[in-house]
């Protein structure tokens, strides 16, 4: 069974966002998403210093099975990317919520996350499928 975390916000397109204590936002893909994709072989993250926009494409994750766009849940400046994924993309499968994070954003408007789903809301969108 997929894991859902109550401290995260989710998009219906399967990204999660975590607001850190310093106000930055960490972004990755859900446990359900990594299970559906199967073995992840490439992750393309945005570059540090670029601006991402909420709801717009910010990267790509490719598994053996399929390619999938990554949408950013918030707008802001990319302040860090998980460079470890370049050498070890399988980390997305083994640890989607911790070591397998994709990038961090300094959000320009944190209230954008109010529209995102909580864990229960996200679980419901999956169960409807």
């Amino acid at each position: 069974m997929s894991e859902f975390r109550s401290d995260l916000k989710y998009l219906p397109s399967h990204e999660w966002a975590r607001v850190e204590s310093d106000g930055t936002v960490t972004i990755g893909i859900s446990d359900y998403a990594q299970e559906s994709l199967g073995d992840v072989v490439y992750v393309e993250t945005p570059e540090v210093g670029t601006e991402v926009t909420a709801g717009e494409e910010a990267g790509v994750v490719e598994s053996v099975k399929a390619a999938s766009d990554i949408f950013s849940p918030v707008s802001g400046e990319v302040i860090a990317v998980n460079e470890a994924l370049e050498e070890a993309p399988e980390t997305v499968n083994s640890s989607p919520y911790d070591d397998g994070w994709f990038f961090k954003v300094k959000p320009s408007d944190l209230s954008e996350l109010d529209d995102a789903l909580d864990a229960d809301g996200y679980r419901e969108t999956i169960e409807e499928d």
Partner: protein
Amino acid sequence: MAQRTELYDQHRALGAKLVDFSGWDMPLHYGSQLHEHRVVRGSAGMFDVSHMTIVDVSGLEAEAYLRYLLANDVAKLDAVEGKALYTAMLNESGGVIDDLIVYRLGDWYRTVVNCATRERDLEWMQRQATGFNVTIAERKELSMLAVQGPEAIDKVSQVLPRFATQLHELKNFQAIQKDDWFFSRTGYTGEDGLEIIMPDGEVVQFWQGLLEAGVEPCGLGARDTLRLEAGMNLYGHEMDESVSPLAANMGWTIAWEPADRDFIGRGALEAEKARGVEWRLVGLVLQERGVLRSHQTVHVPGSDRSGEITSGTFSPTLGLSIAMARVPADVGERCLVDMRNKQVEVDVVKPCFVRHGKKLI
């Protein structure tokens, strides 16, 4: 409800991710497709392929019938008992109805055809049998396992010691039938190994014995990446009824000699050859990051026609993306592929990337 093989409960118990495959609930993987792929390249893995269709052909005119039905010539099997042949079954216009392996076992033949084309195949085989003294029998009561990898034959021998000597003597592309068991040194992975057909009632115990011997279960996901690395065609991707074997890298499976053998599709293939074959199936290698996928467009420099990727994947053995593509026959050494939002350059190679654990590119 979807059909299930005798091993369905075993797959569930092993935590398989099950998917629908042509109306069958089949394991896609048991955790990691990449791991399963590497197991087959390095030691031994097993695949439940009981969804495949086994059709036995017997009768006084079985040979004459198959020489008419199939593009390869089963007369090549006369010399050696159990010998196997890979062949296309064509329609009148030279399109591929299916690809299959045919074995000669004494005075009868066994064919293994694809599950997705089962109904069409059976209907076609029956229809073409008119006027021949043959019996065509689907063997639904049999299960089939593929045990593949450099240690496959040793492992199977360990589980079935009564067959050990014969299994070690079995030549490549040869089969033996012993009691109700059928062993063939064939596969769909590019590694050494066996395809084994047995009564439904005996497959669970055999599967469990293989598990205890350290053979790991592998799903359809790994089967696909393994066959693609080995440059083996998948029906519905590399060929279908609208594609000639000459445009699917299957020219070597057409037995043109003897010239007086009439087989279905022969006239169309001869005409195509005389005109000049316009398309060919090639391998593609992407040296940069990204994964080639089926249906992506392939641009051939200097040609006004574009081709298409028929199968693409990430190659676990090579660590980069490979594909098979049908392109204009005058293709050079490089092509351009339309990937998501960008165009990438790819190398054109022979469609065979890995064999017996060795990288060929």
